[in-house]
């Protein structure tokens, strides 16, 4: 038993070293750490907490372009445009998905505060955009999308 434990530890240790080597590869684009807490949250409120937001301010300065009715929940085009000054990041939350937080875009680097993606929606739900501004405040807007056939199956 003790032997087995030893070999397990050796394997685990080796895997850790490999992962570290992968992260430190020179010249590779340094990606931000994947927000495990936010993306693995199963409830909408936990997903918001996972983004680091304690409160959300409703605003009309975020435009969400999405269909009113999506016939196929597997491919729902969603585009977010933020008019909030100094937008740092844009997150998209599908309130009723099994894992509500769908995506986060860190736009501070040199792109306009705009992102267009296609999402899967499990059922009719509010699609919510959460924008983090440079002053640390979080702004939000929502749009309901009716889903005829769910996209999670």
């Amino acid at each position, binding site marked *: 038993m003790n032997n087995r434990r030893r070999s397990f530890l050796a394997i685990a240790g080796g895997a850790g070293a490999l992962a570290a080597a*992968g992260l430190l590869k020179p010249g590779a684009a340094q990606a931000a750490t994947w927000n495990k807490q936010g993306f693995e949250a199963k409830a909408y409120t936990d997903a918001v907490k996972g983004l680091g937001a304690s409160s959300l301010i409703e605003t009309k300065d975020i435009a969400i372009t999405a269909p009113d009715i999506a016939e196929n929940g597997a491919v729902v085009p969603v585009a977010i445009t933020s008019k909030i000054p100094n937008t740092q990041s844009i997150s998209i939350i599908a309130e009723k998905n099994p894992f509500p937080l769908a995506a986060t875009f860190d736009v501070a680097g040199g792109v306009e505060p705009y992102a267009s993606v296609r999402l899967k929606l499990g059922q009719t739900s509010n699609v919510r955009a959460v924008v983090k501004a440079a002053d640390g405040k979080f702004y939000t807007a929502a749009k309901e999308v009716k889903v005829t056939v769910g996209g999670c199956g």
Partner: protein
Amino acid sequence: MAEPMRIRATLQGDVADVRILMRHPMETGQRKDAKGEIVPVHFIQNVVVTHNGKTVLDAQWSQAVSRDPFLGIRVKGAKAGDKIAVTWTDNRGDKRTDEATVAAAS
């Protein structure tokens, strides 16, 4: 090895309209195959876009992004001939980088 992305970057003023089409199954981990076994979760977690080597967008995704993901962004301060490179990393550690040149407005 993953299939190549299709990247189109068109100039509109000094902003490049970049449209990226990736090839990825984006499995949610909730779907069952013909044998009734759950298809393991497999999706792109990180997307990094660089403009002439400088990172301009860092995106984090969940399995809720559709199959063969589409991403549309607008890169500021671009001019014709600039290089736009896109790198994605999925939850199994697979990676793919593709590059495109910004085309002048037609």
